[in-house]
């Protein structure tokens, strides 16, 4: 088990390097001059030039990249060009709300999606199955910003059940919990469809296998056959799918955070890009990459927990 984790960690090093390079190059391509942004609109050309030299922006790209790697290795991601706060400080404040939002949406949508898929599988061909599949198709095809706006309109504005702007506190406070509700609901809807569909087809496939017939021949109850032998084995591809969907979830987090003014990494990144705050944008991209790698690492660990055949 430990070996699997270490292997996966080693494999993520080149991925991270690639992300660093990509983030670095991307910012070279975007319009706008960092030195100009930093100096402000009223600065004289001399000042801009001085800042450029100071930041090393006049040196060759490769040298700049190496210097960037060195700084990152020391945990120095630079300072925000707008607020002049350390990027680590900005990201540090934003990471909590984002993790909260992701967990909040995963914790309800994955169990619900799995339950819906299992129910659809055991009621295959009935109107229950068709209803569940219709919902999951809707979940896949409705864009998240649209769903968010509907939720805000009806649950927020008309019924006034939940607040929909900002995050008054962490989830364990009453206000924080209520504020988390709508963003987590919208973001979770992204996952429901794919998880329900994958669970349905996976459970159907497993239930037709020989070992399920053996389970029945042992005299187990139909409930136990479905859950302990059908669903248990069917979870293996579902977990893989959740890992693959993690990218969508992170992208969805950017949209959700923006719509609900959720002070997370996604909103920070969008704000940084719109205001040409390159250092913060770079840091946010790196953090997203780390998030993606972490989710997939967790998926790999879960995978080997679920399937003894892949354990070393």
């Amino acid at each position, binding site marked *: 088990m430990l070996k699997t984790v270490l292997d996966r960690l080693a494999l993520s090093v080149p991925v991270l390097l690639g992300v660093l390079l990509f983030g670095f190059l991307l910012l070279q391509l975007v319009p706008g001059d960092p030195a100009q942004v930093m100096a402000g609109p009223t600065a004289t050309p001399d000042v801009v030039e001085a800042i450029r030299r100071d930041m090393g922006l006049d040196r060759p790209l490769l040298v700049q990249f190496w210097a960037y790697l060195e700084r990152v290795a020391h945990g120095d991601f630079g300072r925000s060009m707008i607020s002049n706060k350390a990027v680590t400080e900005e990201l540090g404040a934003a990471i909590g709300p984002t993790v909260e939002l992701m967990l909040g949406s995963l914790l309800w949508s994955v169990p619900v999606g799995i339950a819906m898929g299992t129910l659809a599988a055991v009621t295959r061909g009935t109107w229950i199955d068709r209803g569940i599949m219709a919902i999951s198709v809707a979940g896949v095809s409705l864009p998240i910003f649209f769903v968010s706006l509907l939720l805000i309109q009806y649950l927020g504005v008309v019924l006034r059940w939940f607040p929909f702007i900002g995050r008054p506190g962490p989830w364990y406070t009453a206000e924080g919990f209520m504020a988390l509700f709508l963003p987590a609901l919208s973001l979770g809807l992204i996952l429901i469809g794919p998880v329900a569909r994958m669970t349905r087809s996976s459970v159907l496939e497993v239930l037709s*296998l*020989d*070992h*399920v*017939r*053996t*389970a*029945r*021949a*042992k*005299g*187990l*109850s139909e409930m*136990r056959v479905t859950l*302990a*032998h059908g669903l*248990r*084995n069917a979870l293996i591809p579902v977990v893989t799918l959740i890992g693959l969907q993690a990218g969508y979830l992170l992208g969805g987090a950017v949209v959700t955070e923006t719509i609900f003014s959720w002070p997370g990494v996604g909103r920070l990144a969008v704000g940084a890009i719109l205001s040409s705050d390159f250092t913060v944008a770079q840091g946010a991209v790196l953090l997203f990459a780390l998030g993606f790698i972490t989710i997939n690492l967790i998926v790999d660990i879960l995978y080997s927990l*679920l*399937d*003894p*055949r892949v354990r070393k």
Partner: protein
Amino acid sequence: MQDQHSPLLEVEDLRIEFRTEGGAFRAVDGVSFTVERGKTLGIVGESGCGKSVTSLGIMGLIPQPPGRYVGGSIKFEGRDLLTMSAKERRSLRGGRMGMIFQEPMTSLNPVYTIGHQIIEGLRAHGMRDRAKARKRAIELLDLVRLPSPAERVDDFPHQLSGGQRQRVMIALALANEPDLLIADEPTTALDVTIQAQILDLLRDLSTRTGAAIVMITHDLGVVAETCDDVVVMYAGRVVERAPVAALFSGPMHPYTLGLMAAVPRIDTRSDRLETIPGTVPPPWAMPEGCRFASRCPLATDQCRASQPPLREMGTGHLVACWRAPIEEIAA
């Protein structure tokens, strides 16, 4: 409720249908036989003759739909399984009736240890104490002669060979000391030396535990070696039923004769294997008369026109053929 005088299992005019998009077809059509306590009954026939469906039908493992019991009865100690509640039937499954399947490689759940899978069966039939169930699981693995059972009990199926997995399957089927063991081609997927070991094991266990066995096979060698009585099935029907010695010394149905001729022999030289010409009629186009008529060298107009009933020709020797008794097909 136990009636010691009635046979352990009485299958009477069993008919099982499958509904498909092309219409319903009968996989089992009027099958009758009995299994006495402690005896071994062989059911032989080629693929698709309904022998597996019959065995699944006895266990209550036919998926419904598409399967459907359309008639007959399956009496276990005099009580009809087909009129029992689902709950009662389930308590017999894996309890007093155990089943071994053809495919040891896929018949165990890959994500649980073999011990877990045996214990699960024990617990489903009332053994609540975990420690006791585990001890019993190890005993069972020892009974089916799996080496070092105390360690292997925590192995996963993929850590075992095919023969070992079949031993685990047998342990599973025997877990709750069944009175009836159904073995659906238990050795087909195994290589020859392992086949002999598994058959020895089954025979030995049935004499030790007194369990009756229904042995489903297409292998007449297996029948000769293990069975007391034999049922020969063809296209969903019983064509011949006899004690094993009577069947081998005097087969009466042309199909049985053909099957026996198809077994390669060590004492005669032959360059080619004997085969039965033609194929089984498809289930949706079953002929009016004898289902074997189109392949039978002795078929007459009567054979093609009406179905022959099972008639008793000798003591306990029944055959469904208008031309019986025939001693030998002119070869």
